């Protein structure tokens, strides 16, 4: 054959024998001749099926093995369907007063939080999961998941409250009215590449005038990597 080969033909032709193509078309390494005679040949369809099938197999296998995978089958009707069992988290549950109108003071020094509020009043400070976890465990902070509700339902940090970024203002007001004013609100979204938490934190401070607000920079991914990849351990006393 005098016709110069395409680059892709040359590459494939060296390392792999020509596959069987359409009966009417001459064999062409790499499957180039598979298009001869018009539309997709059976060979191409088989290759498409192979790629899609392999993608499905790899995708579901990887997802099942990955601690940060998607919980397949989670719907809005099954909240908290995080992929790994939430019981593996060693963090204690939030205090019972989180969503109650009868609000005792959180076990912390209000003066200290008030002074913190002056420091973060205009630009909420970032926080990482270990610190956020300690604050929540001490009853000094509440976690707010600002991702879309469907994503919250697919998996969230235990004890967090869903308050999507696009919620109407009255939802924010209602939520904040249920919190002690010296309780820190920590907003989180998906990961470091998500800016929703910072935006909501800004709104909480500047629009709703909440005194103590921070945002978790690593988001839900940071929590997953920190908590769901660890072996389950009994809660420390």
């Amino acid at each position, binding site marked *: *054959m005098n*016709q*110069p080969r*395409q*680059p*892709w033909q*040359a*590459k*494939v032709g060296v390392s*792999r024998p020509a596959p069987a193509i359409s009966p*009417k*078309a*001459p064999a*062409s390494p*790499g*499957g*180039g*001749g*598979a*298009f*001869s*005679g018009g539309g*997709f040949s059976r060979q*191409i369809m088989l*290759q*498409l099926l192979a*790629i*899609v099938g*392999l*993608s*499905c197999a*790899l*995708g*579901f296998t*990887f*997802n099942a093995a*990955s601690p*940060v*995978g*998607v*919980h*397949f*089958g*989670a719907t*809005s009707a099954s909240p908290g369907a995080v992929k790994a069992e939430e019981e593996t988290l060693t963090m204690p549950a939030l205090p019972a007063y989180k969503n109650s109108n009868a609000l005792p003071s959180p076990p912390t020094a209000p003066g200290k939080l008030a002074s913190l509020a002056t420091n973060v009043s205009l630009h909420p400070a970032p926080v990482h999961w270990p610190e956020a976890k300690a604050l929540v465990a001490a009853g000094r902070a509440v976690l707010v998941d600002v991702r*879309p509700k*469907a*994503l919250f339902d*697919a*998996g969230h940090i235990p004890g967090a409250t869903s308050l999507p970024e696009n919620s109407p203002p009255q939802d924010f007001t209602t939520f904040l009215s249920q919190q002690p004013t010296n309780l820190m609100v920590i907003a989180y979204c*998906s*990961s*470091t*590449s*998500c*800016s929703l938490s910072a935006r909501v934190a800004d709104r909480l401070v500047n629009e709703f005038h909440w005194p103590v607000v921070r945002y978790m920079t690593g*988001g*839900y*991914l940071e929590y*997953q990597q920190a908590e769901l990849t660890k072996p389950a351990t009994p809660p420390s006393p």
Partner: protein
Amino acid sequence: MNISPRRNMSGVLRGLLGLLLLWAAVSKLANPTEFLGSIYAYELPLPPAALQGAAIILPWVELLCGLLLLAGFWTPTALALVTGLMMLFVAATGQAWARGLDISCGCFNLEILGLPNRLPGLVKFMESVGFAFCRNLLLAGVAGYLLRGMLRASQAIAEE
């Protein structure tokens, strides 16, 4: 062997397309939950299970197509799949853009380039659905162009 500039360009385009697909796939595989969130944000009229399945499978389709394009193996099939995939993305981003949804396209992880800290405005623009729509349209065009070139070459060989 005399390789024309056009064939050279096709090879470069194919390599770039493959690398882009690999980048997109790795970005999504590194944080599947965030990718699922991005899909949810498009507010597509599909059941959650379908969207979750897409979040699980799509990155791997991109990864395999990227590898196939770089390796030069099953190239026409990979190009056909990429063209279809890009048209799907064009439809998704187009409807989001038309509806005025202010969402992140969820296509690439720009942190690899260190852009979020240096140029947050540029990142927001690059993640907007309007930009994603134009980019997907361009990529669909590139994949279609490469596919058409291969079709023609294949037919020329067959006719000889």
